[in-house]
Structure formats: C-alpha cells, structure tokens
C-alpha cells in the first residue's frame, strides 16, 4: 500500500490549523458529552467501590483461599499491558525511524499515561491494608525496616513507579512545542494563560530544538528497555512463584508480546473513531491502520506461539503438576475461558492476513475489540487457573466474582475513557511539530 503518510494538500499552515482548531475552536459535540457522561457514571461506580473497599476490606471481592488473587490483578496486568503500545509506538518506532508513527504517537502516549495511571490503582487497593502501601518503598522509618528486596512485588513496585513517572514526563516533553502552538493561536485570554503556562515559554529556538531532539532520542532509547523491563517485572510477579503454570521462564517475553498485542488493539479501538469523528483521514491514513493491523497480527502470532509452547513445555516437562495444570486449562472448570481466549487471540486475528479485512475499518475495530477481551480473559485465566488447583488436592477451590469485582473492572474502564475524553478536548490529538517535520522531510524526499 503506497498512499502517502500525509495527504499532499496539508501544508505547515493547514495542518497546524486543522489540528489545533480541534482543541481551540471546535465546539463540544453532543456525542462527546454523551460518552463523557457514561464514563463519569462508571467512574462514580468505581469511586463507590473504593469507599466500600476501604470500609470493609478486600473481602468484598470474591477472593478466597486458595484463589487469593483474581479480578483486581487481572485488571492491573491488562491495563498496564495496554499502556505498553503507546510507549512502543513513540519510542520504538521513533528509533526505527518509522515516519508513520508521527500521526499516532500523541494519542498513543496519552493512552499509555492513562492506562498506567488506572492500572496503578489496583495493586494498591488490592492490599489488605492499602494505607500502608508506602512500606514497599525504601525510606528511613522508625521501625528500622526495609522492603524485602527479593520479592518480585517490590521489583514491580519500582517498575511501575519508574514507568509512570517516565511516561508522564515523556508525554509532557513531547507536548511542549504543540502547547506553544496552542498558546500562540489561542484567542481567549483564558486559553492563552492555560496553554501559556503549560508551554513554559517554548519559542522554538534552533538550539532549544537541538537539545529537545537529543533528549527525545535518549528518552526513546530508554523508554523501550523500560517498557520491556516493566512487563518482564509484571511477568515475574507470577513466575517468581512456584505454582504450576506460573513458574515459567517464558513469561517475560510472553507478557511483552501480550502487552504489545492488547496495546495495538487499544490503539486501533481509539484511533478508528478518532479518525472518523475528527476527520483526521489526512493524517491517520489507510496506511497507518494497515501497519497497525500488521503489527497486531505479528504480536498476536507471537502470543499464540507462547500458548503453544506453554502447552508443549507442560507435557514435555513430564512434571506431574505442570501436566495437571495444562489439563485443567484444556478441560477443567475454566476450560471455557481458555477456549474463549483461543477464539479471540488466535482464531480471530487470522483474518488480518487478508488486505480486504485490514482495509475494512469495521472489521479492524471488531477484531481489535475481540483482542482486548481475549487478553483480559487471558490474564484472568493465567492467575486463577494456577491458583484454584495447586499442589494439594485438599486445598483446591474455586473463584466466584462478586458485584464489586465487576464494579472495579467496569469502573476502571470508565475512568480511562474519562481521562481520554478530557485529553481529546484539551490537548492536540496529533503532534503538530512532528507532522510539520514530516511534511518537510517528504518535500525534501519529493524534491
């Protein structure tokens, strides 16, 4: 497919105006208000859940012995995984000099920031005594105690903290030039002050640009290992355990692939409507969607490979517990979850081999949605299937979700979209300065 990455008619001026007008001029649509109201209601549900949780304890969830982790952790892993794609697109593709990333990286990064923030809620509220979460951080306390450094939960804690801070700053730094644009184009005093403060006086001086570019390059170079490490840590939260199904060395790459997979799914789920409602066809072209679809397929195939290798290893190992666990997945109480996952994550994506499917936005959107669902179920199964049947048959049990388990899942989705909708209204959807850069490059290449 060789449609240009940026419609030829878009000049510096036009593209700047079109993108900035979405935030500055365009009136708030009814559809946006509707979506906002909906996500607000869901978020309120989450809020109620949090209050009730703090009042009563994690017992309001369906947790039990032996299944002491379930929905909340599944939600956490799912969200943080979704976060990954944003960083990968803005960092990884930047390093790979993929020009087509420019149109995507802004909202993808926004997605990252919000997804990571939302995911961060869960590990904290999941504690029996959430108000002591800071005991995971090393600080000189009156007890003369330290965190237990060997625990993957501590590794994960440091990983989330680092990831959250870095991704927020990375997002903000990338925004500064565009904020300057908004400042300069804003007509009302209020907007000028708002964007003026955020732009901290950026003027686009050549040496500033120089340092800015160096930093961006270095941040990108660090963001990539960061996300990979973060997802490896998340994987270690399980594989440090000795449970059959958890105690596995393939988890880190497996998780990274899964994260990319669901992340691209979310990028599509967000991008297709954005493109449609804000008429961004000139910037998010067919070619962008096509590339995303291909990436999602690639990541998906890797995930499917790890499903296969998981099964193979289980039986190849000859370990009684591993085999039993594999059989439980295939035929046990949660087999239906397993087959749902296979349907969503293995079967559905095969359609992406066909260009016609990749070109149909509806199909793409649907498949991306399936992938997101499949990946949630995958996290759920991964956690519960190992816990509910472990070593001693006497302690085998089941997990039954409660009203509040559902509330936290739905609520977190609400919160995510609440934040994303605000982003859509207040910040530029596309990185204007990078598009201008791209335009210039295309011209140079054209000439």
């Amino acid at each position, binding site marked *: 497919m060789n449609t240009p990455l940026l419609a030829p008619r878009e000049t510096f001026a036009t593209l700047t105006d079109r993108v900035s007008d979405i935030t500055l001029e365009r009136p708030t649509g009814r559809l946006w208000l509707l979506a906002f109201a909906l996500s607000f209601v869901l978020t309120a549900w989450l809020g109620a859940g949090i209050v009730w949780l703090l009042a009563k304890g994690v017992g309001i969830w369906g947790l*039990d012995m032996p299944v002491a982790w379930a929905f909340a952790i599944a939600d956490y892993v799912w969200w943080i995984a979704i976060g990954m794609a944003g960083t990968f697109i803005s960092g990884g593709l930047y390093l790979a000099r993929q020009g087509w990333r420019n149109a995507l990286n802004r909202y993808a990064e926004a997605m990252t920031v919000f997804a990571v923030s939302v995911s961060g809620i869960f590990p904290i509220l999941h504690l*029996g005594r959430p108000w002591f979460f800071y005991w995971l951080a090393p600080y000189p306390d009156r007890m003369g105690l330290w965190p237990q450094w060997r625990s993957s939960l501590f590794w994960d804690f440091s990983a989330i903290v680092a990831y959250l801070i870095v991704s927020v700053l990375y997002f903000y730094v990338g925004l500064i030039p565009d904020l300057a644009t908004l400042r300069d184009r804003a007509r009302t005093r209020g907007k000028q002050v708002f964007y003026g403060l955020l732009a901290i006086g950026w003027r686009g001086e050549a040496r500033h640009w120089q340092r800015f570019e160096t930093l961006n390059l270095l941040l990108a170079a660090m963001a990539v290992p960061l996300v990979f490490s973060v997802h490896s840590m998340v994987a270690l939260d399980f594989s440090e355990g000795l449970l059959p199904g958890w105690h596995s060395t393939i988890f880190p790459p497996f998780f990274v692939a899964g994260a990319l997979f669901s992340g691209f799914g979310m990028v599509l789920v967000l991008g297709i409507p954005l493109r449609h409602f804000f008429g961004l066809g000139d910037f998010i072209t067919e070619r962008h969607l096509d590339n995303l679809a291909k990436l999602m397929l690639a990541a998906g195939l890797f995930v499917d490979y790890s499903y296969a290798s998981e099964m193979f290893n289980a039986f190849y190992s000859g370990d009684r517990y591993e085999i039993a666990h594999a059989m439980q997945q295939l035929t046990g109480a949660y087999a239906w979850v397993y087959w749902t996952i296979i349907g969503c994550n293995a079967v559905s994506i095969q359609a992406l081999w066909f260009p016609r499917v990749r070109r149909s936005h509806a199909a793409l959107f649907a498949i991306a949605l399936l992938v997101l669902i499949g990946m949630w179920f995958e996290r759920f199964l991964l956690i519960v299937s190992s816990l509910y049947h472990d*070593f*001693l*048959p*006497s*302690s085998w049990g089941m997990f039954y979700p409660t*009203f509040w388990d559902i509330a936290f899942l739905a609520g977190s989705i609400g919160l995510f979209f609440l934040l994303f909708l605000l982003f859509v209204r207040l910040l530029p959807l596309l990185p204007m300065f990078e598009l201008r850069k791209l335009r210039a490059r295309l011209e140079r290449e054209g000439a």
Partner: protein
Amino acid sequence: MTRPTARDALRTRLGDSRGPRYWRALEEIIEQPAWRSRLHEAFPQLARLEPALDRRDFLKLIGASLALAGLGACSRPPQEQIVPWVRRPDQLPPALPRFYASTLACAGDVAGVLVETHQGRPTKIEGNPAHPMSLGATTPAMQAAVLELWDPDRSQGPVHDGVAASWDAFRAEAGRLAARFARDGHGLHVLGGRLDSPTLAAQRDAWLARFPGAQWHAYEAIDDDNALAGARLAFGTPLRTRHRVDRARVILALEADFLGSQPGSLRHARDFIAGRDPASEEFNRLYVVEASPTLTGARADHRWALDSAHIGMVALELGDLLGLPGVHAPQASGMSARRLRALARDLADQRGTSLVLAGRTQPPWVHALAHLLNEALGNVGHTVDYYEPAEPWVSSADGLRELTRAMAAGTVDTLLLLDGNPLYATPVDAQFARLLARVPHRIHLGLYRDETALACQWHLPRSHALEGWSDLRAADGTASPVQPVIAPLYDSRSTHELLAMFLGDTQSPRERVQATWHADDDAWRASLQSGVIPHSAPPAQHPRVDDAFLGHIPTPADQPGLELLFAPDPTVWDGRYANNGWLQELPKPLTALTWSNVALVSPELALAHDLKNGDALEMRIDGRHTQAPVWVMPGQAARSVTVWLGYGRRHAGRVGGQLGFDAYALRTAAAPWRVDGLRVNRTDAHYALATTQRHHAMEGRAPVRATTLDAFRTDPAIAQGHAQDPPSLYPDRLHGDYAWGMSVDLNACIGCGACTIACQAENNIPVVGAAEVERGREMHWIRVDRYYEGDVRAPRIHHQPVPCMHCEHAPCEVVCPVGATVHDAEGLNVQVYNRCVGTRFCSNNCPYKVRRFNFLQYSDLHTETLKAQRNPDVTVRNRGVMEKCTYCIQRIETAHIAADKAGRRIADGEVLTACQAVCPTQAIVFGDQQDPATAVSRQKASPRHYTLLEELNTRPRTTYLASIRNPHPALEDDA
C-alpha cells in the same frame, strides 16, 4: 433395547475405579452434566453475588465491623491506664497463667481437665494427665467449653413470665413449693439429664425423701440405654462395661464408635493406638461393621458397610461359626462367608486378647450377644470387665415416657427442668411442647434462654461448669471434682444450689460436694490438686452371661425399603452446642462440613435418585417428614440414610439459630436410633453447604503415604521418598541454639479434629461464619485433610493434619515485599502481623496452602466477654493481615524466658504446642530436632518418616510418619 438400571451403571463405572488407583471427586464418577455445572462454578449468575451490604447474619456474628479499621493507625493511640489492686490477693505475679484441675462433662463424655487462667480469666482447657479418662487429652467439645463460658448469649438473670426477676423472688417461690409438697410430693416432677454427678445423685435421693411421691425423670437425647439394657439382658443387672483396648490384639466393633462418639473415647483412642506401633511385635487389627462411616470405621483395617438392621445378624453368624451353643442367625446378614470365616478364625486365635464391642445404636440383644462373645472368647477379665454403676441407672426412654404420660394425664403440677432443652431435643411423637403447656408450674434452669426456657414461667440461669462446684463420674467409674475457676459471670446458680434451695440445704456449694465424699480438708485439697478422687472407681466384676436372651431375638423384617439412622452431630452433639461458634465451624470428621447437618446417603442411592451434595431431599416416614440437604457419603451402606441430630434450633442465640434441619422431627421415642420404611424423593431446591475441603481424591500425588504391615516389615523404607534432602543452590544457614521441628504420625491420627479447635482456642483464631467458610475463608491454622481411596462403596479413609510446615527454604518468605514473613534463628517461619500489608502472594506461593487471610474484620473487637476469653500472649489480628500456624511461639518464648533466666536449656517436652497437648493419640510431637535425644528427633529417624511435597525441596520442619494398615492376610484385597 433396555436401559441398564442405575445400579448396573454404577457398578460398571465403579468397576474401573477399583483397586489401587485413587478415584476422583464423586461427581466425576456419577457423571453430572459436567461442563454446565462448571460454567456455573466459574461464573455463577450475579444473583448469588450479594454486594455484602445485607449480611445481617454475618454482621450479627462478628459484630458491626469498624469502618476504616486500619485508618485508626493515622491518629495518636489512646492514653492507656494502669489500675493497681487496692489489696493484691496473695497469688503468683499477675502475668503468669495458672492451671486449675477440674472436670468437664461434654457430649456424653467425662474427662479431667486443667483450666488455664490469666489474671483469673479462664482462657484455655488442657487435659488432665492424671485423669485416667483424659491422660492429658480432651475432646473438641471440652476445648470449646471456654467459649461457652464467655458466650455473650448466655442467660444472665432469672426471668419470670418473660420479665426480668430476681433470685430472691424465686427463693420465695421455691419456699412456697417446698412447703406445698413437703407432705405429699405427688405432682412435683423433676426432669434432669444424665445422672453422672454423685453429688447430684445424693441430692436426688434427698429430694425423693423430702418430697414423698415426687418423681425424678432423666432424659438424654443421646443415651446409652441399649448398652445398659443389653447388660441387664446378659447379667440380670445393668452393669457398665470397661474396655481395655490396649490389651486387645483383634477388635470387632459392631457399629461401635469407640474412638469417636462413645464415652471414654479419649482413653480408648490412646489405648488403641498404643497397640499399633509398627516398631513393636504387637500390632492390633480392627474390624468394623457399620452402616455409616465413623472415625472408628475410618481407622479400621477392615471396614464393612452393612445396614444397621443386619449387624446383629453378623454377630449371630459369628457366634455360630465360633460354635457358641444356641447361637444361630434366623436370617442371613449378607456378609460374605469368606469375611466371616477369616474374622472368626482371627478372633478365635486371639483368645483372651480379642474384643467385641457393640454400639449405642444397636438393640440390647446385640450388646448382650457381644458380652456372650467376649465371654466365649475368654476376654472377660483381660480386655473387658464390668462394674456396678454407683449411681442407679435410669433409662432415658422410660424417663421421657413416664413424664409425658403423667403430663398427658394432667397429674403434673410443677415441673422442674434441670438443664436440658426437652422442648427441642425430644422425639416429635412425644409432643413435649403441647404437653408442657398443660403443666401449671414450669421452672427451667439452663445456660441459655432456649426453646424450653421460653415455654416456662420461670427461667433460671445456670452457672457454667467452670463457675461452680460439683463432681462427675467418668466412663470407667472414676470420680473427680469440679471446682470453680471464676466467680459466676452472671446472676446464675448451679443445679446443686437450685436443688438445695428447695431442700433447705444451707451448706456452701463446696461443703456439699466435699460432704458427698466424706473427705477431710487435706484429702479434699489433694484430690483438687490431682483432679481425681482416689479409689472412687467401683471394683471390677466378672459375672457370667445368662444366654436366655437368645431365645427371643427379633428377626428383622426384611424390608426392601430404606432405613433411617439417627446419630449425634459430630460437633454440636444433641444441639446443646448450637451457639458455640468454634464447634459450629469445626469441620465435621469425614465430611469437612461446617455450620449444618445433612442426610448422609450412599453413592448407590445418590445415583438412583440423581442426587448430588446439597440437593434438598424430601424424607417421609409414616407421617413424619422433613427436608434435608443431601451428602453423598462414600462407604455408606446402600440402603441406609443417616441424619445428624442437633440442628434446626429456633432459639439458640445469635450464632446457632436457623442452621440445618431438625432431625428430631423424624425421630420417635420407640425407635430412637433406626427405623425402616423411609421414603425419599429429590426436590429441585438446593442448599449451600459450607465445607472446608472440596476435593477428597489424592490425584496420585500421595500426600498421605500408607502401606500394610507386611509390606512395611519386608521393606521398612517403603514409605520413604528421597533418603536425604535434594541438593540446593542456597547455603545452609546456621541454626540457633534450638531447631524447632514437628512430626505428625499419620498412623496415630484418628482425625478427631481436636487439634484444630485447640489451636483456635490457644491462638485467638476468629470464627468467620457459614457464608465465609462457603467462600473458602475459614481461619483454622491446622486443618485435618481427608482423602478417600479405592472403591466408593468401601473406600479407605485417610486423615492428615496440616499445620504450617515452617520450611527452611520457605517459598512464602521470598515473595513478601515488606518482609512480613521471615525466618528466625531457631527455624520458625514467623508471620509479623504488624508489618503485613496483605499482598497475599505468600499464600499463593505456599504449596501447602496453610496460610489464612483476614479478608474482613473477623475478630470481634467489641464484645467484652469474647475479649476476656482471648489468650493475652497472642496478638489479635485485624482485617487485612495474613496469619498462620506459629508453632505456638508464645509457648516457646515463655519457655525460652524461663530457661534463659535460669541459665539452662529448654528441656524436651517443656514446650507443648496446643495441637500436640490436646491430641488423644499423641500423633503430634514437637521439639528441638537438632538434639538427637528428643522425641521429635527419634520420630524423624523412623523409617516411616517422609516429607510432604518433598520434590519441591522446601525443607519443611513439619514432617510426617506414614500410616500402617494391618489387614487380615486372607483379606488383603478387601478393605
């Protein structure tokens, strides 16, 4: 073509699940529409998933949980106060616990105990090693006596016509009544319970003398009438039997649960296990013939399921084979000749060292026959002897019949109900409630304001056994004193005091009991200290059996239908412990059920009616009917359905009300134990049953290792896995002065569950309630796992107590991000509650799943009496923290401090864990495994020693000794 009958279907399916292979969960054999039910399991419809807002019963149970409990940490702790004595009583320093010898009568059994008190608060019961029927052990019910004492629902003051009254008011009333009946006692009736207190017996005689014509009835829902009636058949007088199980080499139990629900079980269990040491030459063999599996059946070398009606026939056939004159079975029992011949030969070979016991559920003539067999086998004087009960035996059935007849006739003017709940605990056909209403004056003395109390004009609170003076006689006739360890918490009186009130007896309670024994003060003090009254047991007799009873043995009507059996509930007994949270939550042996009773049905019956656990079963038997949740019981005789008494209480208190179903509604005074002609049909309703174990198959993982005696003798190491620990990457960290370790002998464990409840009492473990247990959130630190093996109809049953393993390479410790669970120098895996933030990773990573989490605020921080019950040496855990077995670290530290102050080492046996102390068979041994001389080291040196899940190389400090069975050589294949 014709469909095969359900029975055939079962046989074919069972066919391939026989033999050594372990069978899976029952549902898998009786194929349910599997995946649908599983779908339901995985995600049941939201209807089930309450938002926990309307948890009335739950809230009632734990008391309103304080909102944002832990956030209290964000404010300054309150100013504490110290309140000194004005005049300190002359005693030990306040912080050291004291022990008082006393005696408890619980669940039909009597044993001497030591009551541990802290600053005058009884907190824990231990067995009295000096008492022959305890030897240091106690039953679960005795452990729970402390909670009963502190139960906030206890009746706290006299009530007259529903309004609070005073004892003075009642004393006046008593005076009037005494005056009225002084000349002619007709119309004055007393209904008491089992007469096992000599002092009470004396007062009874005084009563009958003081009020000529008055009547004294005794009723117990769970009585031993059959045994005594049987003795009367055999000997002419109702002698009591003493069994010397330790001397027996071959034991035949005819539905006799002598390790469980029968009096003297503690001593019998100790003796029985003493006779099963694989190291010694002597190793007894136990045959059990019973309809419904019991703890005794579970330990049997041969357990043969047979409907209760035909068990007598087995005894007859046996007598026939042994060539007893005049003994022949009018009807075949259905027991295979092969088994009978083997059994007969085995018994005959062991003349004088064999033993035949009959259970309380068997009719008198079976007991008589058992006596005859023992006589024929020359066991009398060796494994069994008899004694004349000091207190006259009054038949429970007669007592109830006479009273109800009198009430019906309207000749009862005043009825004094001494501590009992006949309104609830009497057979439905006695119509006690209706008749009681006709009695003009009704006076009830009891611990609770129960059903009966509410039906009486006068309700008087009874003092708890730990609050008053008395004496009790144990199963072997030994009498022992009961002394108060705390002044009555409420305005209550003991039974003796109440009777004294009528009798105008002005002695102090202590004097009265002391007087019964004509003991001078020194002797009395001595017996108070030892907890036993010397030479109080009646002498042994060896009477001849008069076999005249053989003449008129009723032939069981050979009915094709089902038989209904009644049994005391394993934990709440006849219902008297319904309000005791510890007992309610103690998993019942073999089923691991809590908070409810069930109808036990055989797999065959389940298949025939397509029943699965929890289905509501409609039970009808000539006019009487009720609905009960089903429990499919492996090893249940095909046509027997067993129901447990003691549930369906209406006014038990905030804990015990509205649980299970009332089995008395099916019971008749004429046939209290078994009745034919039961008709059942399945309804669509379903009960949610709270079990602590959902899967009873070992899945080929052999957590329990068992072998036969012969196999063990040929290869002692047969049960062992690796010789020594597999290698590890980690350096061996040096130990401290001690290396605490525990060994659990599965060959000794009888699965009674006393360890679980003793641990609960010692370690302030909260009760969580049925709903939470159903979710799998029970808090017990030591659980007893049950596994079934082999044929569903005749499974082998294994028990395995599982506390924390205290692994040297503990998986739980590595994954805790705050270091709330770490190791100490002496090898304990310690859980630091105040550091725990509750990630629960430790529990996920524990292969033994012994960790327990406070998902909600379980421990009651409000009810004063419950706070007073707690062990001050153990932290009370709040919500959000993990907890688990600590090896009773508080006891270790106490010993440590004592030894360190004296500059000596802690002696072996100086530290007893709560589970170890209570165990009737001494299956649990604890100590320093570094020192080869200690008991625990010797145990761990045994060839039967093995480690649970040793392939994980967690290096547990808690290890096991394999269990040994001793089947008859000719019946190897036939469990």
